[in-house]
C-alpha cells in the first residue's frame, strides 16, 4: 500500500473528528445555574500517581455527592476531572481555565506538591476553594498557607513523624537514608532525621542518589546494608521508591531483620509490588480500608475503584473532604458558598468533621485537617488472609500529635 497525501488526509481527518465530536474537555460553562456547585477533580490520570488518585478520586467524590443528600435539597452538583500530568504549568493552566471559563467552585485532590502549590496560589487569587488530598508538602499549611486551601489527608510532617518517630519507639533505633538528590528528598530526610533523633534514635549515614534517572539502586542498598542500621529510610518517591524496594527484596535485606521504611508509599504501591517483594516494609498512612468497621463499611459502599483497586488514603480523603464541604454548603447556602471560597473554608473550619473514612476530626485555622495517623507493617504472604489484606497495625499516632503544631508552621493565618 502506498502512502499518498490523499489517503493520509482522509485518515487524519477521520481520526481527528471522532474524538473532537466525542467531547472537548473544556466545554464552556452553559447558563450558570446559580444553584449548581461545580467540583473539579484535578490529578494524575496517566502517570505514576494514577492509582493513588486518578479516576478513583473522582469515583470517591461522586459517592460523597450522593451521600451528602445535597441533591434532595434542590442543589445540583457537577463533577469534572482533568489530568495535570504532574506538571505545575499544566496544572495551573487547567485551574485558571476552570475558574475563569467553566465556573468551577472547588478543586479537589491535586497530588504532586509542586502542582498543589501552584493551584493553591491561583485559588486564592480567584477566591475559590481548594481541598487538597493528594499532595505531601506541609508548606500548604505552613509558609504557603492560604485562607482558601484545606489540606486534608496527610503531609510530609505526618509521614516523617509516623515513620521516623513511631518507628524508633517500635525498636528501629539506627537509621540509614537513601535520598533522592533534590529538594523534596532533602526535605524528607531532614524532617525524618529530626524525629529519629528526638525519639532517641541515631542516623548512621546516608547516600544521595542522582535525580532524575537513577534506576540501579544496588550499590546504594549495599552501602546501607554495610552500615548495619536497623532501618533503611527511603527518602524518595514514585518510581525511585518502587525500584529501591524491588531491589532490596532481591538482596533479601528485609529478611535479614533490617526494616525498610518507605516515607511515601501507598497501599496501591504495595498492591502492585506484591507481598513477596514488599513484605516487612513500614509505612505511615491515615486511612486503610481494613482498619475498622467504619472504614470497611466505607470501602464496601464505594465498591471497587476504576482499575479494580481498593481505595487509597488519597481517594478516601477526596470523599471525606467533599462530603464536609457539601455539609458546609448546605449550612451556609449555595450563593454564599459560591461567592467566596474563603468563607466556605471558614465554615468548614467551624464545623467538626465526621465520616466513615477518617472518623471524627476538625479543620484547624491554618487549613490543616487533623485525624489520627497509623504506622503499618506490610504482612508476609503467609500472614495475608485474602485479597488486599496487606497491613498490620504497628502503632497509632493520636490526632493531636500526628500533625505539626499549629504555632510551628509559620502560617500567616495564625496569630501567635
Amino acid at each position: 500500500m502506498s502512502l499518498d497525501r490523499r489517503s493520509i488526509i482522509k485518515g487524519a481527518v477521520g481520526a481527528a473528528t471522532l474524538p473532537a465530536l466525542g467531547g472537548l474537555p473544556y466545554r464552556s460553562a452553559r447558563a450558570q445555574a446559580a444553584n449548581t456547585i461545580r467540583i473539579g477533580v484535578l490529578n494524575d490520570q496517566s502517570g505514576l500517581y494514577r492509582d493513588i488518585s486518578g479516576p478513583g478520586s473522582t469515583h470517591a467524590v461522586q459517592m460523597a455527592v450522593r451521600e451528602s443528600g445535597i441533591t434532595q435539597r434542590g442543589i445540583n452538583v457537577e463533577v469534572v476531572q482533568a489530568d495535570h500530568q504532574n506538571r505545575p504549568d499544566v496544572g495551573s493552566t487547567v485551574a485558571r481555565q476552570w475558574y475563569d471559563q467553566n465556573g468551577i467552585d472547588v478543586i479537589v485532590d491535586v497530588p504532586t506538591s509542586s502542582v498543589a502549590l501552584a493551584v493553591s496560589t491561583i485559588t486564592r487569587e480567584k477566591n475559590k476553594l481548594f481541598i487538597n488530598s493528594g499532595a505531601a508538602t506541609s508548606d500548604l499549611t505552613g509558609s504557603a498557607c492560604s485562607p482558601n486551601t484545606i489540606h486534608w489527608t496527610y503531609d510530609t510532617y505526618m509521614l516523617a513523624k509516623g515513620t521516623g518517630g513511631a518507628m524508633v519507639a517500635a525498636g528501629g533505633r539506627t537509621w540509614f537514608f537513601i535520598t533522592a538528590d533534590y529538594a523534596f528528598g532533602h526535605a524528607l530526610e531532614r524532617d525524618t532525621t529530626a524525629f529519629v533523633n528526638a525519639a532517641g534514635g541515631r542516623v548512621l549515614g546516608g547516600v544521595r542518589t542522582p535525580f532524575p534517572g537513577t534506576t540501579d539502586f544496588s550499590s546504594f542498598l549495599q552501602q546501607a546494608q554495610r552500615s548495619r542500621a536497623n532501618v533503611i529510610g527511603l527518602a524518595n518517591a514514585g518510581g525511585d521508591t518502587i525500584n529501591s524496594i524491588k531491589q532490596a527484596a532481591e538482596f533479601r535485606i528485609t529478611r535479614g531483620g533490617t526494616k525498610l521504611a518507605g516515607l511515601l508509599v501507598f497501599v496501591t504501591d504495595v498492591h502492585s509490588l506484591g507481598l513477596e517483594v514488599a513484605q516487612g516494609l513500614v509505612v505511615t498512612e491515615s486511612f486503610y480500608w481494613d482498619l475498622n468497621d467504619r472504614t470497611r463499611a466505607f470501602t464496601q459502599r464505594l465498591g471497587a475503584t476504576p482499575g479494580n483497586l481498593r481505595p487509597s488514603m488519597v481517594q478516601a480523603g477526596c470523599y471525606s473532604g467533599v462530603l464536609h464541604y457539601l455539609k458546609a454548603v448546605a449550612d451556609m447556602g449555595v450563593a454564599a458558598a459560591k461567592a467566596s471560597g474563603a468563607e466556605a473554608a471558614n465554615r468548614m473550619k467551624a464545623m467538626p468533621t465526621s465520616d466513615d473514612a477518617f472518623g471524627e476530626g476538625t479543620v484547624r485555622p491554618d487549613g490543616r485537617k487533623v485525624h489520627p495517623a497509623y504506622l503499618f507493617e506490610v504482612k508476609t504472604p503467609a500472614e495475608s488472609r485474602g485479597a488486599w489484606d496487606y497491613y498490620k497495625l504497628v502503632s497509632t499516632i493520636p490526632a493531636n500529635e500526628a500533625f505539626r503544631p499549629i504555632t510551628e508552621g509559620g502560617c500567616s493565618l495564625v496569630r501567635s
Partner: protein
Amino acid sequence: MAEGSIATAPSPGAPSVDEEVFFGFTRPQAAAFLALVVIVVASPFVIYPFFLMKLLCFALFACAFNLLIGYVGLLSFGHAAYFGMGAYVSGYAAKEWGVTPEVAILLGGATGALLGIPFGWLAIRRTGIYFAMITLALAQMVYFFCVQAPFTGGEDGIQAIPRRSLFGVFSLDSDFAMYWVVAGVFLGGFLLIHRVVHSPFGQVLKAIRDNEPRAISLGYRTDDYKLMAFVLSAGIAGLAGAVKALAMKIATLTDVLWTMSGEVVLMSLVGGLGTIFGPVAGAAFIVTMQTYLAEFGAWVLVIQGVIFIAAVLAFRRGLVGEVGHLLKVKL
C-alpha cells in the same frame, strides 16, 4: 532601505507577487501579515486571553527557532535551554528583585542571547546531526543546572510571579491587559525576524544554507554569520520564555526540558520550515491541540507523533508552505 539585491524596484503597472511592497513583504505576505494583525487584535474579545497568551509566546519561540533551521539550515535540538532560562531569569527578577515587567522581559532576552554566545560558538563548528547533538547536550547541562540550582525552585519552579505594572504605570494584573504586552512583544519579534531574513545579512544566511563552500569562496566569514544568527535566535527564544513566565505567572522545569526543544521542532515543521508565517500557524495548531485534547492525557503525545509522521511523509512544506504552494505565492 536595504531591501535587497534581489528584489527589483516596484513598477507602477501590475506588480508581480514576488515584489516587495512594504517592509520587505511581498504583496501576499503583506496581506497575510495584515490578517495576522487583525486576528491578534480581535481574538482576545472572542477567545480566552490566557490561552491566547500561551499561544503567542510559543509562536514567537517557534519563529526564533525557524530563523535558525529555516534560513541558516541549522537544526538546533536545544532551544528549550534559552527559552527556559529566559523564563527563569525574568520570573526571578520580577519576583525577587521586584523589577518592572519590561525590564524582566529584556533581562530574559539578554539571558537567552548571552547563553547563545558560548553555546553557538561551540556548536556552529559542526553541522547536521553533530550540530543537533551538541546543542542537545548543552541544553541537557542547562536542565541539570536548573534541577539543582536553588534559584529555580527545583521541581516547584518559580511560582506566583507578579506581573506588576508596565513602566511602573499600567497595571497588568488582568489577563486582558497582559495580553496586549504579549501581543506587542510577539509582533515586534515577528517583524524583527522578518526584517533580518530580508536584509542583506539574511541573504548571506540563505546563501550559507544553500551552499556554504560557495559563500566562503565569495569571501564571507560564514562562522561569524552563523554565530550571529544563533545568538539572535537564542535571544528571541529567551524573550519568548520571559514573556511566557510573566503571562503564565510560572516558570518550571518543563520549559528547559528536552521535550520542549522537540515541541518547537514539531511546531516549525507542521507550520512550514523556512516560511515566515509557518511557525506561527504551527504553534497555533500544536498549542490548540494540546489544550483541547488535554483530556486524552498521554495520548496527546501519540497524536503529536502521528501528526509529525504525516507532516514529514505528505506535507513536507508544512501547513503554510502547502497553502503557499497551492496559491503559488511565497508566505
